[in-house]
C-alpha cells in the first residue's frame, strides 16, 4: 500500500463516476481532511443517491472492487485481492442528497475536483453517527466534530448550528461539545 496507490484508487473512482454522469459527495474522513483537520483514514466515503447504487457497483467492479457489506444505508467495497483501500457508500434518498449537494463545495482534493460535503453537513453526519450506531465517540468522531467547528470557525451561536445540535446530538455529546468549545484552543 502506498500514497501512489491511494491517489490512483481515488482518482480512478472519482473520474469513472464523473464520466458516468453520477453526482456524489465526499464525506467521512477524507472530507474531514479536505476541511482542514488531518487524521488518518483508509477508506473513501461518498454519499450517493440510493438509486445510483447499481451504477456504482458497475463502476467499482470495473475498477477491480467487490462488495463486502451492504445494508439499507451503506455499501462497502474492497479490492478483489483484498487489502488496499476500501470505498464506502452512504445511500440517501433524493431529497436528502439534494440538500447535501446544495451545501457542498467543489474543491481540489486528491488530484481531483470533487464535491466535498459542507462543513455543517459534515458535523450533522458525524453527530448522527455518534447517536445512531455503536461508534466509540471518544476515539472516532468526537475530535472530528470539535476540530471541524474550530478550524472552520463555525459560529456556534448561529441558529442553524444550534438547530443541528438539537437535531443530531445526544444530550451528553451536546453538553461536552459546548463545554469544550468554551475553552481556549
Amino acid at each position, binding site marked *: 500500500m502506498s*500514497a501512489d496507490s491511494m491517489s490512483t484508487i481515488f482518482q480512478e473512482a472519482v473520474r469513472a463516476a464523473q464520466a458516468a454522469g453520477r453526482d456524489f459527495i465526499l464525506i467521512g474522513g477524507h472530507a474531514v481532511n*479536505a476541511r482542514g483537520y488531518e*487524521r488518518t483514514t483508509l477508506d473513501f466515503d461518498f454519499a450517493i443517491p440510493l438509486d445510483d447504487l447499481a451504477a456504482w457497483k458497475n463502476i467499482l467492479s470495473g475498477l477491480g472492487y467487490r462488495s463486502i457489506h451492504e445494508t*439499507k444505508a451503506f455499501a462497502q467495497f474492497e479490492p478483489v485481492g483484498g487489502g488496499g483501500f476500501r470505498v464506502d457508500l452512504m445511500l*440517501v*434518498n433524493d431529497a436528502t442528497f439534494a*440538500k447535501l449537494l446544495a451545501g457542498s463545495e467543489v474543491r481540489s482534493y486528491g*488530484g481531483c475536483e470533487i464535491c466535498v460535503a459542507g462543513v455543517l453537513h459534515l458535523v450533522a453526519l458525524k453527530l448522527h453517527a455518534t447517536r445512531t450506531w455503536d461508534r466509540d465517540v471518544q476515539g472516532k468522531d468526537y475530535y472530528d466534530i470539535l476540530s471541524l467547528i474550530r*478550524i472552520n470557525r463555525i459560529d456556534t451561536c448561529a441558529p442553524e448550528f444550534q438547530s*443541528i445540535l438539537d437535531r443530531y446530538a445526544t444530550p451528553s455529546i451536546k453538553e461536552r461539545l459546548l463545554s469544550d468549545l468554551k475553552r481556549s484552543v
Partner: protein
Amino acid sequence: MPHPASKSDSSAISSDPFDLDLPEIGPGEGPLDHPEPTFDEQIAHAQFLLAAAPPDFYELRRALMNPEPFRLD
C-alpha cells in the same frame, strides 16, 4: 436489492437544509469497522495528503494542531 434509506422521507417536504433524512441504524446495520492502520498505511495516508491536499489545507491545518494525528474512523 437496495432498501430505502429510511422509513420516512421528511426531508422531501422540509425546506430546512439541515433536516436530513438520515437512516436510523440498528445493530449490525452500520458499516463495517476498519482494522487499526499499520504504520505503512499511516505513512501512505500522510503522503497522500502532502501530495494532494487542497490549496488552503496547510493554512487550515496550522489553525489547530491535531492532538492525535493518527486516528482511524
